[in-house]
């Protein structure tokens, strides 16, 4: 059951439902003595929206970077549609995993359309010679790219602003553009790193709709997010990462009901005081030269 990732069409990277698109097994990431991610397993099946939540510093973004080839995991492996991920981020994108960034990273001085066209890079082949000689193939590919890019801009509702500079877009639209740019690489899996950070409730709702629409195209989505309502509305499955380890994974109800999750996020009642385990952890962290930025125990003490 393999699908050609370069097939063109409404959902070029789509694969049959139920098939595992992303399979991370035992992913561990160490920076020197600091273990940012410890032995995390995560699967994303096609047609699924999976959420990844966790307090600040839980290792979400590090895990994300392992999935996108920015980091090579110290241990474990990440497979995309059965093949181990190549260790370079551009190869990962070519393989079919596209991402957005926590802090928007658009090409600020390029137009909206050009941003999306850059996203088409891996799905077009025209090199320097083709650009210089401008044969019919070049014009055809260029026109096709533009058409596809405009289609994506329409999809996210930015087609009216194709010639605007990306930097001049309002915040919410920059987020949308980043998603469109990621979709331009015809991914089978889209990784969204805090897509609603800094958004108002309406914009968050709109993003929700957009993510559903992307899923409906057959693209699997993995979302990192802080906004609980957003995550629980959106996701088929949610995994909780605390202190670099996967605490629990399951559907919204399971996760919401899990008291460890509540503890990690809201803190335990103060009467209970930090448990011996947490105290030990805090001390261990303080003893370390580079204190991990894990906020979970600290937050508990604040409350």
């Amino acid at each position: 059951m393999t699908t050609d990732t370069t097939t063109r069409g409404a959902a070029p990277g789509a694969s049959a439902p139920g098939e595992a698109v992303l399979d991370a097994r035992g992913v561990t990431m160490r920076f020197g003595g600091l273990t940012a991610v410890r032995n995390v397993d995560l699967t994303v099946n096609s047609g699924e929206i999976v959420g990844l939540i966790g307090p600040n510093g839980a290792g979400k973004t590090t895990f994300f970077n392992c999935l996108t080839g920015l980091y090579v995991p110290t241990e474990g492996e990440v497979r995309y549609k059965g093949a181990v991920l190549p260790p370079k981020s551009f190869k990962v994108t070519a393989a079919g995993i596209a991402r957005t960034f926590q802090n928007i990273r658009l090409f600020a001085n390029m137009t909206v359309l050009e941003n999306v066209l850059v996203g088409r890079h891996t799905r077009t082949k025209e090199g320097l010679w083709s650009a210089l000689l401008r044969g019919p193939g070049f014009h055809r590919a260029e026109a096709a790219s533009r058409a596809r890019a405009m289609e994506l801009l329409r999809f996210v509702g930015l087609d009216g602003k194709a010639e605007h500079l990306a930097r001049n877009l309002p915040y919410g639209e920059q987020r949308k553009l980043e998603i469109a740019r990621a979709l331009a690489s015809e991914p089978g899996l889209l990784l969204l790193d805090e897509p609603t950070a800094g958004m108002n409730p309406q914009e968050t709702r709109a993003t929700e709709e957009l993510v559903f629409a992307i899923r409906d195209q057959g693209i699997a989505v993995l979302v990192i997010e802080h906004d609980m309502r957003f995550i629980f509305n959106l996701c088929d499955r949610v995994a909780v990462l605390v202190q670099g380890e996967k605490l629990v994974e399951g559907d919204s109800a399971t996760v919401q009901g899990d008291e460890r999750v509540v503890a990690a996020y809201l803190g335990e009642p103060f009467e209970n005081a930090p448990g011996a385990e947490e105290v030990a952890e805090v001390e261990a962290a303080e003893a370390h030269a580079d204190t991990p930025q894990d906020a979970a125990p600290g937050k508990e003490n604040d409350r």
Partner: protein
Amino acid sequence: MTTQTTAPETPSAPVAGRTSGALGMPAPVARALATGGGVLSVVSTFLAWTWTSEFPGDLTVYGYPGGLQVLVLIAGALTALFGLSSYGVKGLTGLTPAGGDGALRFASLAAFGTAWYTVIAISSTLGGVVNLEPGGYLAAAASLIAVLGAHTLPFERPEPDPLDPDESAWEHIKHRLAHGWQTVKASYAGGTPRPVGALPSYAEILIIVAILALGLTVFTYGIGTSYDELFIGFLITAGFGFAALNKAGLVAQASQITARHQNITMVGAFVAAALFPFTQTDDQYATVGVYILIFATVALGLNIVVGLAGLLDLGYVAFLGVGAYAAALVSGSPSSPFDVHFPFWAAVLVGAAASLVFGVLIGAPTLRLRGDYLAIVTLGFGEIFRITANNLDGTSGPDLTNGSNGIASIPNLDILGFDFGAQHDVGGFTIGRFANYFFLMLIITAVVVLVFRRSGDSRIGRAWVAIREDETAAHAMGINGFRVKLIAFAVGASLAGLAGTVQAHVTYTVTPEQYLFAGPIPPNSAFLLAAVVLGGMGTISGPLIGASLLFLIPNKLQFLGDYQLLAFGVALILLMRFRPEGLIPNRRRQLEFHEEAEAPAVLTKAGA
């Protein structure tokens, strides 16, 4: 709480958006003075300005302006025209689509600057103001009146920012200076030009032809200025005149029209450039022309590396050197160790290929570095090339480059029986040796322009810009940063090598000392980079104009002598302070540096 929270008091509380000029002169009087001053300046150029023809240009003739007078005539006419246009005279309002007052100020400055420069030059050269004839006095007075009139026209004064009265005296001074500067800026401000309506395309093409003809005339005039005073006058007139046209909104309209017919403009520009040798009677200025072209072409090649891909290359001139040496070695020169004489096409291929190889060799290990490191490595490579070429003389190394003597007596090119060393007569025009090379170089320039345009507007060009903008995000988009950067580096290198093959033949001799990092004679790496930055990164016309200026100014202002580099440095600092996007700004960069101001929010496809 700190004292900072005290309510700021507005000093002298001016009325918001007050419009008034200096000296409180009523606007109609000021406008009349400016326009009249312009007309009088024109009249004055038909009178004699001095009694003796000792001052260069012969300004003693009645009824026939000469030399610097012509420049004052043009500037005065411009002032008068803008003045009349600002009155709303029918048929002239089209001259100032963005409002006439800013344009009028600059035009009057052009007339004033040139006239007073001339008068002062006459007085100091000939020893005293007694050497002035009535015409000279009239010119000085008329242009002064024009400048006074134009600068007392009312304008919208900016309101000063509120200032905390508790601030120190120094802060007050700074604040007042800042407001003064704001006011000065506001006084020269122009409006937004109205867009050009759709004209019939033949009319637009005629306009383009006129623009190009004007450009050719100005350029030819500048190159042909035969004495220092005239060139300085030319710079004053051209500088302020261009500013006036810009404020009038004519430049914006012209760029709109040329953007509609990019290909025609491009071809037209090359035709205009090709006409240049025909405007010359001897080879003297064609020499300057061909050197400018070499310099400009290499600068344009560098613009791919710096302007598009954002790779700071401080040793770019070495690739020109590699190309030149490669071509010289296979040219059949007696001092070349190889006893071969390749035809030109083969030499071009050898030169470009040699540069390409060196580009890849230098690029492959260094392009994994970002930013500053790359600059340092390329700077080092530039010096390594020069020193190596110096040492491959048979004593300290193998005999390849003939050391500091270089490879001399490179024979002239001969393509299909056309001898580049000889004079040719074409339709009554004599085309000398340098003019021949000028045409050849023009073809190379065209190739470089083509490569720049086509690669810039393509998948690879977008990848270059993406890498420049945000390398991490570009990687996440599937761009192989190293590969794409290496391509940019290699393309840039081989284009420089291409220019080098022609340069070797033009200069007869190739020596290591032609390829310095910084030196008084362009092209060298520092000047190349300066040409790109000064002209405008990422544009085609920018480096061409930047290179022309950077070549012409030291070439014409010989009297600057040892202070050339100092003056150059000061000019560059001033430019970077006031116009960081360069003379011909890329739309992108203009937006980058002037976020809040006049910049358009929409980037149309008129970038270069």
